[in-house]
C-alpha cells in the first residue's frame, strides 16, 4: 500500500485499532477494502470473526469460508471463531468431515482450538494407540490441540508419571506445556520446601518454570500472615501481580483483613482494588457481605447486586448474605420476585440458602405433588435448597421410609445428603450393634458414610470415660475434630471429668482448649462455673462475661452460676441493669433461673397487673422465668382457679408446666374419683400429664394394702419407681406390711433391702421401722454392733406390751449425742477398728 492508501485504512479503522497488524499492511489496499466491505459482516454469526487474524486469508477465501453450508449445522456453529483463519476452506472442510468424529470418545474435541492443527495432524493425534489405555483417556480434551502428535507421545511416555507424587498432575491442562517445560517444572528444587507442596496441582501448567520459580521465591512467603495464600489458585497470577496485591495499602483497613484469602487470586490488583473500594461497603446492611465470597464477582457485578431495590423490602433483608455472590443480579431478581412467596406455605422457605438454586429449580421443587402428602409437609424447610427437585423426589420415594426403624429419620436434615449416600448410611452394618443403634437419629445426615464409619470405629469408645459421649449430637463434628477433642490431655485430670459430656460436641477442639486454659478457673469465685454447659460459648465471650464489673455488686453475686452460659454478654448486662431490681419486692426474683428469660419478657412479667391480685401474689417467684408473659397470663386466667379443689394448686411450682399441660392435668376426669382427690396438691406439678395418668391408672390402687399410700408424696416419683416399690416381695410378709407408708417411695430399693437384711441378721426384723430404712445399712449395722458391744438392748417393751426397736435406733444424731452419750462419728471410728 502507498501512503495515501495507508492513511485511508487508518482513518477507516480508527475505532477498530485492534484489527491493525503487520499482516494487514502486507495486503493490497483493494484486498483490505474488499474484506472490510464484505456484506457477510452484517450477519450476526460472523461478527466476532473480524479480527486481525483475518489478514492471512484473501477476500475470496474468506467469503468461501463464511458461506460454507456447514455453519448452518448446530454442531459446528461454535467452531466459528477467529482461530478459523489459520486454515483454508479446503482444510476446514476436510477437518469437519473426518470420520473420526463419529467415534464417541472424540466428540468433545471438535472445538475452535482445532484450527491450530491441520487435518493430517488431527488424524494422527486421534488415532494414537495411547488412547486405548484407560489412564490416558481423560486427557483427550480440546486442549490437546496445543500439541502435535510427537509432543503428545513424548509427554505421555514421561517416566515421571510413574511417580506417585506426580500422577495427579497428568491432567488435560498439561497440554499447555511442552515436554521439556514439564520436566523442568517437575524437577524444580522448590518442591522440597514444605510450604509449596500444596501448590503442585494440575493448574501449575498455566505457568512456565521461570514464572513458577519467581513466584515461589518471593520473600513475602516468610511472613506468617501470607502463608495461607499459598494455594494452587495462585497460578492465575504472576509474581509482579502477586507482589502488588500483597502490598496494597487497603489491607491495613480493619474491614478488609478477612478478605486476604487465596480465592482473591482470580483477580488482578486493579480488580481487587476496584472491589475493595466499592462505596457500598460503607452501608450498614452490606458490611456483613465483606467476605472472601466477593472474589468470584467483578466490582460492577457486586454493585449491581448491592443496589437492587429489592433489598429495601423487609422480607428480603435477611437474604443479603455472603453466599449471594454465587448468583448474578438477574438471577437474584428472578427469585425474589417469584409470586410464590406471597403464599403463606412457602414464605418460611425464603432464606439465604435459596441461592443454591435458580428460579426454575425452585419452582419445580415448590410444585412437587409430594407436598400435599401429610407425611412430607414438615420436610419443606429451607434446607431443601441443597437438592434439586429430581433428587428430592427420589429421596421421598425411597422404600426405606416404610420401615418402622427408619421413619423417624425422614426430617429436614436429610437434604444434606444424596439418595446414594442416604441408602449407604441406612444399610451400614454398624446399626445392628446395640451400642450404636441409638445414634441412628436425624443428626446423622450431617455426615457421610466414610465419616460415620471413621467415627464409630474410633478406639476411644472402649474407654469408660468416653463412652457416654457417643450420643447423636456427635454427628455435628467431623472425625478429625472428634479425635482432637478426645486426645486432649486435660481429660487425664480427674477434676475435668464432669466436663466430658455430650455437650462438648457443640464446640471445636481449639475453642475447648482455650476455655480449659483460661486463668480465671484458678479464681475460687469462678471454679463452679466450669461445667459442661460452658461448651456453647467461646473463650473470648466467657472472659468478657466473667470480667463484667456488675459482679462486684452484692445483689448480683448469686447470679454467677453455670446457667449464665445461655446468655450473651449484652443480654446479661441488659438484664442486670433493669431498674426493677432496685424495687424491694423484686429482689428475691434475682436468682440464676433468670438466665432462662429475655429482658423484654422479664420486664413484661414483672409489670403484669395480675400481681396485684392477692391469690396470685405468691406465684411471683424466681422459677417464673421459665415461662413467658403470654403463657403466664394464659395460666392465671384459667377458669379452673374458681373451683375450690384446684385453688391449692396455685403455687409457684406451677411454672414447671406449660399452660397446655396444666389445662390437661386439671381436666383429668380422675379427680372426680374420691381416692385421688387428696392428691390434688402443688406437688402434682412435678409430673407431666402422661406420668400422672400412668400413676393413677395403676391397677395396684385396687389393692387395699396400698390405698393408704395414695398421698401427694407420690408425685415426687415416677410410675416405674412406684410400681417397683408396690411389688416388693416384703409386702406379702406380715412382719413388714407396717412399712407400707407413703414415705417408702423415695428410698432406693437397695437401701430398703439392705436395711431389712441387717435387722434380720440380728433377729429383730419384725420391729423394723421406716426410719431404720432411711439410714445407710452400714451405719445401721455399726450402731447395732455398738449397742451389743456395750450391752445395750436392741428392743424395748412398749406400753401395749409389744416389742419395739430401742429409741437409740430411731433417734437423730443430735439426740444420740445429747441424751444417749453416743457420738456417731466416734462410734464409727471405734467400730471400724473393731471390724478390722
Amino acid at each position, binding site marked *: 500500500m502507498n501512503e495515501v492508501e495507508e492513511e485511508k485504512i487508518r482513518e477507516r479503522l480508527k475505532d477498530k485499532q485492534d484489527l491493525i497488524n503487520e499482516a494487514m499492511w502486507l495486503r493490497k489496499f483493494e484486498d483490505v477494502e474488499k474484506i472490510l466491505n464484505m456484506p457477510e459482516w452484517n450477519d450476526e454469526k460472523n461478527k466476532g470473526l473480524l479480527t486481525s487474524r483475518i489478514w492471512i486469508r484473501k477476500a475470496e477465501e474468506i467469503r468461501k469460508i463464511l458461506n460454507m453450508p456447514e455453519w448452518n449445522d448446530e454442531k459446528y456453529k461454535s467452531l466459528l471463531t477467529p482461530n478459523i483463519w489459520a486454515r483454508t476452506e479446503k482444510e476446514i472442510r476436510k477437518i469437519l468431515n473426518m470420520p473420526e468424529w463419529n467415534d464417541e470418545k472424540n466428540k468433545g474435541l471438535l472445538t475452535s482450538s482445532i484450527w491450530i492443527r491441520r487435518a493430517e495432524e488431527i488424524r494422527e493425534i486421534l488415532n494414537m494407540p495411547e488412547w486405548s489405555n484407560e489412564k490416558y483417556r481423560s486427557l483427550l480434551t480440546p486442549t490437546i490441540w496445543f500439541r502435535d502428535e510427537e509432543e503428545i507421545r513424548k509427554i505421555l511416555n514421561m517416566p515421571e508419571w510413574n511417580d506417585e507424587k506426580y500422577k495427579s498432575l497428568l491432567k488435560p491442562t498439561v497440554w499447555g506445556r511442552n515436554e521439556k517445560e514439564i520436566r523442568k517444572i517437575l524437577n524444580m528444587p522448590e518442591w522440597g520446601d514444605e510450604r509449596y507442596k500444596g501448590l503442585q496441582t494440575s493448574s501449575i501448567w498455566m505457568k512456565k518454570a521461570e514464572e513458577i520459580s519467581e513466584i515461589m521465591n518471593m520473600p513475602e512467603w516468610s511472613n506468617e500472615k501470607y502463608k495461607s495464600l499459598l494455594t494452587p489458585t495462585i497460578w492465575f497470577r504472576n509474581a509482579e501481580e502477586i507482589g502488588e496485591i500483597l502490598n496494597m495499602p487497603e489491607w491495613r483497613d480493619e474491614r478488609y483483613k478477612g478478605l486476604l484469602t487465596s480465592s482473591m487470586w482470580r483477580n488482578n490488583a486493579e480488580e481487587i482494588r476496584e472491589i475493595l473500594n466499592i462505596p457500598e461497603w460503607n452501608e450498614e446492611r452490606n458490611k456483613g457481605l465483606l467476605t472472601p465470597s466477593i472474589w468470584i464477582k467483578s466490582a460492577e457485578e457486586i454493585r449491581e447486586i448491592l443496589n437492587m431495590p429489592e433489598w429495601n423490602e423487609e422480607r428480603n433483608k435477611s437474604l443479603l448474605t455472603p453466599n449471594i455472590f454465587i448468583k448474578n443480579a438477574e438471577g437474584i431478581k428472578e427469585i425474589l420476585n417469584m409470586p410464590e412467596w406471597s403464599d403463606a406455605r412457602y414464605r418460611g422457605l425464603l432464606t439465604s440458602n435459596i441461592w443454591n438454586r435458580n428460579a426454575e429449580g425452585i419452582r419445580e421443587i415448590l410444585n412437587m405433588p409430594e407436598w400435599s402428602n401429610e407425611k412430607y409437609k414438615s420436610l419443606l424447610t429451607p434446607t431443601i435448597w441443597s437438592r434439586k427437585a429430581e433428587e428430592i423426589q427420589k429421596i421421598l420415594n425411597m422404600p426405606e421410609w416404610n420401615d418402622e426403624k427408619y421413619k423417624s429419620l425422614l426430617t429436614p436434615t436429610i437434604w444434606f445428603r444424596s439418595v446414594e449416600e442416604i441408602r449407604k448410611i441406612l444399610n451400614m452394618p454398624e446399626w445392628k450393634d446395640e451400642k450404636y443403634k441409638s445414634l441412628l437419629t436425624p443428626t446423622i445426615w450431617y455426615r457421610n458414610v466414610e465419616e460415620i464409619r471413621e467415627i464409630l470405629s474410633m478406639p476411644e469408645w472402649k474407654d469408660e470415660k468416653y463412652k457416654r459421649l457417643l450420643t447423636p449430637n456427635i454427628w455435628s463434628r467431623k472425625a478429625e475434630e472428634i479425635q482432637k477433642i478426645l486426645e486432649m490431655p486435660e481429660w487425664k485430670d480427674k477434676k475435668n471429668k464432669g466436663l466430658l459430656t455430650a455437650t462438648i460436641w457443640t464446640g471445636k477442639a481449639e475453642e475447648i482448649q482455650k476455655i480449659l486454659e483460661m486463668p480465671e478457673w484458678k479464681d475460687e469465685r469462678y471454679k463452679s462455673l466450669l461445667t459442661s454447659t460452658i461448651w456453647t460459648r467461646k473463650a473470648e465471650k466467657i472472659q468478657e462475661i466473667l470480667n463484667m464489673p456488675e459482679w462486684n455488686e452484692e445483689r448480683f453475686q448469686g447470679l454467677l452460676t453455670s446457667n449464665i452460659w445461655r446468655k450473651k454478654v449484652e443480654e446479661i448486662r441488659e438484664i442486670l441493669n433493669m431498674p426493677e431490681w432496685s424495687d424491694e419486692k423484686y429482689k428475691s426474683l434475682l436468682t440464676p433461673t433468670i438466665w432462662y428469660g429475655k429482658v423484654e419478657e422479664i420486664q413484661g412479667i414483672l409489670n403484669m397487673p395480675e400481681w396485684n391480685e392477692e391469690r396470685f401474689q405468691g406465684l411471683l*417467684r424466681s422459677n417464673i422465668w421459665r415461662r413467658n408473659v403470654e403463657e403466664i397470663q394464659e395460666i392465671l386466667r384459667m377458669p379452673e382457679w374458681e373451683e375450690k379443689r384446684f385453688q391449692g394448686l396455685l403455687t409457684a411450682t406451677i411454672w414447671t408446666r406449660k399452660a397446655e399441660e396444666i389445662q390437661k392435668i386439671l381436666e383429668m376426669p380422675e379427680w372426680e374419683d374420691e381416692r385421688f382427690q387428696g392428691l390434688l396438691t402443688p406437688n402434682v406439678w412435678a409430673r407431666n400429664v402422661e406420668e400422672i395418668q400412668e400413676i393413677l391408672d395403676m391397677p395396684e390402687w385396687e389393692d387395699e394394702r396400698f390405698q393408704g399410700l395414695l398421698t401427694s408424696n407420690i408425685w415426687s416419683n415416677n410410675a416405674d419407681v412406684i410400681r417397683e416399690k408396690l411389688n416388693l416381695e416384703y409386702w406379702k410378709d406380715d412382719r413388714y406390711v407396717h412399712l407400707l407408708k407413703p414415705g417408702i417411695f*423415695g*428410698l432406693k430399693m437397695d437401701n430398703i433391702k439392705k436395711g431389712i437384711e441387717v435387722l434380720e441378721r440380728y433377729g429383730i426384723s419384725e420391729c423394723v421401722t421406716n426410719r431404720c430404712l432411711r439410714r445407710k445399712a452400714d451405719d445401721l449395722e455399726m450402731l447395732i454392733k455398738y449397742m451389743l458391744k456395750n450391752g445395750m438392748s436392741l428392743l424395748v417393751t412398749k406400753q401395749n406390751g409389744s416389742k419395739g426397736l430401742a429409741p437409740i435406733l430411731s433417734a437423730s444424731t443430735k439426740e444420740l449425742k445429747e441424751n444417749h452419750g453416743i457420738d456417731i462419728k466416734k462410734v464409727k471410728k471405734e467400730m471400724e477398728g473393731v471390724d478390722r
Partner: protein
Amino acid sequence: MIDLDMKEIKDKFEESVINNIDKQNAHKILSFLVNEKCDFIEDIISDYLDLFTFDYEEFVNKYTKLNEKYNGEFLKEARANMDLLEEFYY
C-alpha cells in the same frame, strides 16, 4: 455449715426425688426449720431428703398440723424419734 455426703444421698434416694428438689424451695424450707429452732437439720437432709420435694407452703401446712398434734413439740419429739417424720407424707 451443713456437711453432706452426696454419695450417700445418691445411694439412698431415688433419682426422681433428687431431681425434683427445687433449690429455692428447699432453701425456704431450711430457713423455716432454722426459724423453728430445728437442731437436727443434717439428719433430716441425710435421711429425709424427700421432705424437701414438698412445696414450701404445703410443707409449712403439714408441719403446722403435726406441731398442733404434738402440742407444739413436734420437732422435739421427732428429734428423739425420727420415725415421726413419716407422718409428713400423709
